């Protein structure tokens, strides 16, 4: 197992270097001068040269790359040109929102997708199977921004003023406030990693509210996550349902299931103890891969629901030519994606010994 781990870790090194390089090149090739994009009318040659000097844009590309890479190692992602703040801080403020959204949608996807797949496989070729598969097929074919708009319209406009109405924008109801966690706990003058940690946790509204014991705020934050999570979770839900169904159908036809049944074991026992264990194994991979894909869908979901996550901010930064932000965000998102794949590989090897040995 240790050998396997080491092998996998070594394999991702070139990928990560490649990600940094590709991102750097891509960002540099966004046409247009960031100075003119930022300063607009005030962009005289003189202010621009001062501007370029300040953000190190005058150096040649290899020097910039080297400086950026050394910064990365020490956790320094540079400063945003537009906001003049460290990119790392902006990321720590916005990533928690997107993570909450991703976790929420994954929970939705699993909670609906797995049972749908089980029913569908167990009642193979019944109307229930057909219905479940229609839902799954529509789920993968629906543009998620459209689904978001429709959900917002239905729960926000049609059901407005009924008990079923759900919030369709922002993270908390106006009037609700949540102080940063470190302030609430009386911690001041935090530096370095603890400061980053609390910045991150404070912006994870659900967790922060729970840790502060503000249950009303936590409920409100959760309520605001419902529609975006359904929107973002529909595609993975459909994929999980289809996969669960086909896996379970394969397994239910296996000899050992027939043996289990002929031993006189109860149907429920056979299904959940014998069949499910093998059928759900490949789901680990899909769940991991979908998690990465969610980050792309988050751009659309955050746009539709006006949520302050990384996705929307990244797109805005691309158009503002805020190089450091685009660079930092893209690298971190791709890095998380690679890490997620690694975790999937490792957990898979842990669950299924055959993979470790081959």
């Amino acid at each position: 197992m240790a050998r396997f781990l080491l092998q996998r870790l070594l394999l991702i090194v070139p990928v990560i270097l490649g990600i940094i390089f590709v991102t750097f090149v891509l960002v540099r090739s966004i046409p247009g001068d960031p100075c003119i994009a930022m300063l607009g009318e005030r962009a005289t040659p003189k202010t621009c040269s001062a501007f370029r000097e300040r953000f190190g844009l005058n150096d040649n590309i290899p020097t910039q790359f080297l400086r950026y890479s050394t910064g990365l190692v020490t956790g320094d992602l540079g400063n945003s040109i537009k906001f003049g703040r460290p990119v790392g801080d902006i990321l720590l403020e916005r990533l928690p929102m997107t993570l909450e959204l991703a976790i929420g949608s994954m929970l939705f996807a699993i909670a609906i997708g797995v049972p749908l797949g089980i029913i569908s496989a167990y009642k193979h070729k019944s109307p229930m199977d057909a219905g479940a598969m229609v839902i799954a097929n529509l789920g993968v074919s629906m543009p998620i921004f459209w689904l978001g708009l429709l959900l917002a319209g239905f729960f926000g406009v049609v059901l407005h003023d009924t008990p079923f109405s759900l919030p369709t924008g922002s993270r908390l109801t106006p009037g609700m406030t949540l102080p940063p966690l470190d302030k609430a706990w009386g911690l001041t003058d935090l530096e370095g990693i603890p400061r980053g940690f609390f910045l991150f946790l404070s912006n994870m509204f659900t967790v922060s509210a729970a840790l502060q014991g503000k249950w009303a705020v936590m409920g409100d934050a959760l309520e605001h996550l419902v529609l975006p999570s359904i929107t973002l979770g529909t595609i993975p839900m459909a994929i999980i349902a289809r996969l669960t169904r086909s896996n379970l159908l394969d397994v239910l036809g296996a000899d050992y299931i027939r043996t289990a049944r002929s031993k006189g074991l109860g149907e429920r026992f056979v299904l959940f103890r014998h069949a499910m264990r093998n059928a759900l194994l490949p789901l680990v991979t899909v769940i991991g891969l979908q998690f990465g894909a969610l980050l792309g869908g988050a751009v659309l979901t955050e746009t539709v629901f006006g949520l302050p996550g990384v996705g929307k901010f990244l797109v805005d930064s691309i158009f503002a030519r805020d190089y450091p932000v685009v660079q930092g965000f893209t690298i971190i998102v791709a890095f998380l994606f690679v890490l997620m794949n690694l975790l999937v590989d490792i957990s898979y090897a842990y669950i299924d010994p055959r993979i470790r040995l081959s």
Partner: protein
Amino acid sequence: MLLRQKAVEPGILRPARSASMWRNAWRHLLRNRSGQVGLLIIGILLLVAIFAPIIATHDPITFTDPNNRVRVTPCIHLFGCPSNEPQHIFGLDGNGRDLFSRVVHATRVSLFIGIATVTFAIIVGTLLGALSGYVGGWLDNVLMRLMDVLLAFPSLLLAIALVAVLRPLIVQGLNPLLPALFAIGFVGIPIYARIVRASVLSIKELDYVTADKALGVPASRTLFRTILPNALTPLIVQGTLGIASGILDAAALGFLGLGQQPPHPEWGTMLGVERNSVFNGPHLLIFPGLAIMLTVLAFNLLGDGLRDALDPRLNR
């Protein structure tokens, strides 16, 4: 049945075995429920795209309501809409244009995007994958790590970044859709490269490939005539599903304002422009969205059907 025929008439050796394989696949596809529905919808969509100017009741761009009404809900005479009111079966959009005509014309754009981007991705991906698998060594390593890196970015994000890079480079007068087309095609390349590489690797050491070599057949001919046809099946399935995701991505880019530009009709762009009309014109959101869903669904179903039809394990 095939076997028995062969046993009875051992003398007849048909060289064109591949043709019978495709005919077989076609038969299976026509018997497959997903395949049937997918083919039917795609057929209708193709007809709509070809005959769009005839089907559309108004001009999609130049026609505007003479009374300057906007976002009027659908009016169909057959369903009791007063006959003194002009008929607009999908209603009017935010600029007083006929929504039905716009949705119909947009079919052309979306089908074109889906097919063009997948064709581009398959051609480039096949070349890269074949090269990678056939030559091997450091070239294989470099190309495949590059594909890994591309796959490490969420595809929509990569497409958005590419459009941002390419858009300002487009010279005036060129189709503004080009950056989006290229971006969507580009992010699809790694999948096809991987498929082709895998099938090249799996058969390049087999005896019949060695036989080619022994006979002195040029490497390029071996690659294109002997090896690549083996990759065709997964490519066809993946390509069909790729059309679906290409259409979805194009709609997403349009929604974000990065695809087709108004006033030209495109489903995603139409949704993006009218995203705040849930209250005062829900029909403006429903019809373009339904059109996207139906098209994507059709290609997904056809892809599933093809997968079943082409899978030799299932060939009864």
